[in-house]
């Protein structure tokens, strides 16, 4: 019964130790167990050591230069140092062995995986592999020993080797570890696996055989699980492209059931663009002149009605038609008609002259109206056409209503004309300069940004028992990691994240050195108690 126990260091705090260990290992002839065997007394001491993490206590906000504070700080600091420099004792049989493969940025297991295999790792080419953050976490837990070039890595080495821009950052790992310790299942987020909103709407089955992260991964196709962000991006795009194509196909196939059937052509043509007016205005009849642009703008000048003779029975001057109406020029008539004089006088007697029955009130109004004649006004007489007349009327109206003209004839005008009646709701809408928005509104049109991306899918601890890596199901939330010193995400970033995540909430983990706090943005609507 050999008690084979290995020693690793909790952290990289004591710089000298790993080197010493490595030296010792090198001197080991067999080169099989790169570990120290503990004597029974040492083992007993390690076993009986307190495993409690020192309590940090109240936070001091301000140095008050007192000895008491200084002492307390020093003591706390020492406790932490001793904690991180402590040697950790594990049973050698419990340790899974793995090898770090830098070219692929993964850890390949060389002995069968333990219980952690249920929620971590993936198989490739018949080999069990771990992602670097998973390996590091397991190293910290004392479940894994990783070798590189036949040398075991200390935890400090793990931090140095595994965490990089190509894999996960330190902050991301801190969030990963934090969530793992709390019991959550944490998987890397793969944007390409996320179905678009359209696919969700169609209720397409989620395709789980994505390239990156499942059990049956083809290593040749995707050489690095931890490929660079740009690489993942382009792959995601490509996949999305082909998925949209597929969707379009689907749409065509479903056309028969779809509500939006091809519209009947005549109805469509009349309902086209902009409320269906333009067709009516622009259809050019036959051989219309092309030089219509100039001149036609000027609204008709006065016609010379003395030369254009209408058979007006009402005109009081009889001399207009002495002895009847002269025959019109045959060129004006259809079919080259030739007609003779027209006796207007005879018609004059036949016109309807009967009095209209009116009530007393109407008669009074009528009397008043008889005195009123627009053309008595000199300004009106001066107008030569409708444009001038309407301008005059508008001017008069403006004067009457007393609207301050200087506010309205410049480029910037008041938001609302007080003379125009408007419902309260509409008015509020009109004057609210900043419009409310929903998280998903317009997000599909935004371009991807690099500075914010979702890192992890998080699954709740109570689902661990039934958890399957091949079919993880819908995550509980998605995690986005940022530093306390990073700026707060803007609306664009939030919209993008929400769009990427779909109906699953995005949680932003803010890392402040060791402390992690979680924030999320939620859609909500301000109540308006205005009756529409």
């Amino acid at each position, binding site marked *: 019964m050999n008690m084979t126990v290995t020693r690793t260091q909790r952290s990289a705090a004591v710089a000298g130790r790993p080197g010493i260990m490595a030296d010792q290992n090198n001197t080991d002839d067999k080169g099989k167990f790169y570990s120290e065997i503990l004597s029974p007394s040492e083992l007993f001491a390690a076993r009986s050591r307190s495993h409690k993490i020192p309590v940090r206590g109240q936070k001091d906000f301000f140095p008050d230069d007192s000895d008491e504070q200084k002492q307390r700080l020093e003591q706390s600091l020492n406790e932490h140092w001793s904690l991180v420099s402590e040697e950790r004792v594990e049973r050698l049989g419990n340790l899974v062995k793995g090898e770090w493969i830098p070219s692929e940025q993964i850890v390949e297991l060389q002995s069968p995986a333990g219980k952690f295999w249920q929620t971590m790792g993936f198989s490739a080419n018949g080999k069990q592999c771990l992602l670097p953050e998973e390996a590091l976490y397991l190293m910290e837990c004392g479940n894994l020993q990783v070798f590189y070039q036949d040398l075991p890595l200390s935890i400090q080495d793990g931090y140095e080797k595994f965490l990089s821009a190509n894999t996960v950052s330190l902050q991301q790992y801190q969030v990963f570890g934090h969530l793992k310790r709390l019991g959550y299942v944490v998987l890397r987020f793969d944007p390409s696996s996320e179905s678009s909103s359209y696919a969700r709407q169609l209720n397409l089955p989620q395709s789980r055989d994505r390239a990156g992260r499942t059990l049956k991964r083809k290593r040749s196709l995707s050489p690095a699980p931890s490929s660079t962000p740009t690489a993942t991006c382009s792959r995601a795009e490509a996949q999305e492209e082909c998925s949209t194509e597929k969707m379009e196909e689907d749409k065509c196939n479903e056309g028969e059931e779809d509500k939006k059937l091809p519209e009947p052509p005549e109805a469509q043509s009349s309902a086209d663009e902009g*409320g269906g007016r333009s067709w009516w205005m622009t259809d050019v009849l036959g051989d219309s002149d092309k030089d219509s642009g100039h001149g036609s703008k000027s609204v008709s000048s006065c016609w010379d009605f003395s030369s254009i003779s209408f*058979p007006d029975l009402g005109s009081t001057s009889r001399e207009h038609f002495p002895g009847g109406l002269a025959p019109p020029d045959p060129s004006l008539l259809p079919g080259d008609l030739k007609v003779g004089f027209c006796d207007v006088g005879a018609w004059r007697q036949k016109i309807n002259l009967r009095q209209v029955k009116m009530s007393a009130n109407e008669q009074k109004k009528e009397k008043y109206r008889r005195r009123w004649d627009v053309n008595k006004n000199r300004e009106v007489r001066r107008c030569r056409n409708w444009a001038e007349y309407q301008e005059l009327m508008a001017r008069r109206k403006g004067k009457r209503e007393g609207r301050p003209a200087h506010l309205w004839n410049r480029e910037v005008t008041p938001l609302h004309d007080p003379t125009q009646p408007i419902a309260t709701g509409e008015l509020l809408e009109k004057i609210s300069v900043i419009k409310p928005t929903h998280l998903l509104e317009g997000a599909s049109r935004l371009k991807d940004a690099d500075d914010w991306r979702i890192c992890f899918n998080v699954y709740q601890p109570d689902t661990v028992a039934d958890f399957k890596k091949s079919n993880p199901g819908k995550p509980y939330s998605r995690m986005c990691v940022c530093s306390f010193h990073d700026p707060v995400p803007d609306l664009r970033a939030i919209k993008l994240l929400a769009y990427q995540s779909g109906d699953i909430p995005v949680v932003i983990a803010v890392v402040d050195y060791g402390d992690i706090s979680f924030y999320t943005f939620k859609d909500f609507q301000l109540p308006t108690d205005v009756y529409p």
Partner: protein
Amino acid sequence: MATEGVEKTSEDAPAAGKASTRYDLEKETELRFEVESGEAAEQVELELLTGMAEVFGSELNRNKKYTFGPGSKIAVFTWQGCSVNLYGKPEVAYVSKDTPMLLYLNTHAALEQMRKQAERDNERGPRVMVVGPTDVGKSTVCRMLLSYAVRVGRRPTFVELDVGQSGVSVPGTVSALCIERPADVEEGFSVQAPLVYHFGSTSPGTNIKLYNKLTSCLAEVFSQRCEVNRKASVGGCIINTCGWVKGSGYQALVHCASTFQVDVVLVLDHERLYNELKRDLPHFVRVVLLPKSGGVVERSKECRRDTRDEKIREYFYGFRGVTFYPFSYEVRFSDVRIYKIGAPSIPDSCLPLGMSQDDTQLKLVPVTPGRDLTYHVLSVSSAEDGDEGARKGIVESPVCGFIVVTHVDTQAQVMKVLSPAPRPLPRHTLLIMDIRFMDMK
């Protein structure tokens, strides 16, 4: 006087076996005849034997038989003299010398003179508004002037503002139509791609604000068309109006004159209206008083209703009910939104502060589909199917078609509709009319 020049020649009856009557007309006289109205009434056929004649401005072909259905009131006018045959038994038929056609022709000549001037000076052509009380022949004068204009090679626009008796589309609408050929003697103008706006009722008085708004819409579209289409600009337009010439109806006429910027107003047989318009329109608008034709008959309420019904039937089944085959299908309530334009009026004291009654007249009021929707005519608005924001444009959007609700099933939440095109509806915004149509025939 009316029987002058008539020879009854029943001996040369045509193969149809109908009684035939021959009329020889002198120059500048007209033959007026009416066909009995009612279901059982016999049709009357007209044939031009010699000479030249026209019906409301459209020339007749020689030796072609024109058929006129029940309720038709026709005047065959000749400038040079002609002889025609009538087959069948008209209710009345007589020849009259007493016709104002020469005055109308002179009016046309004056308008044509203006068009020539417009063409020469690169100006716009005359815009003419025809006004007058009911039953003075406004529509007929419009038809004549338009036909004459087309016959001399113009392309005038016909603007129909008579919501009660629309000559273009179904009643309850205002519309504009480009005229490219003279009216068919039997069918009237060929209705191709008219611009139609939903009004919803047969009297402008029910919502005068909306009426004026739609008039402005038409005027705006017409002006835009004139800017891009020189020929339409020179052709000008002829506006037919309602017979309501008092109070708000009169104000609507003045409003129409102003938005269309009319150059000539033709007042038919109403001197008081003539004088009022002379006072209320600026001096550069020529107001002309014209007599009505002696042949104009007063139409009863029933007669007007029948014509309206006929017009709607014509929309669905084609002229004389034979050309078109409409579709009937079910529409779910949830698929459409039905609105009525104009909220019911409420007393001023109940209105919010600062709001006036007029504001409600252009409001869209959602209609809950129910049994009382049955037989109503619905306009399919061409407004894009959008959410609340898009509702604003609905009033000013033209109509792309009409449907009639034939049956409502409140249990299944569906209604059966009669539609000129197969399903689905091109748009899902429907506007309800006060007008109902029962598909009895």
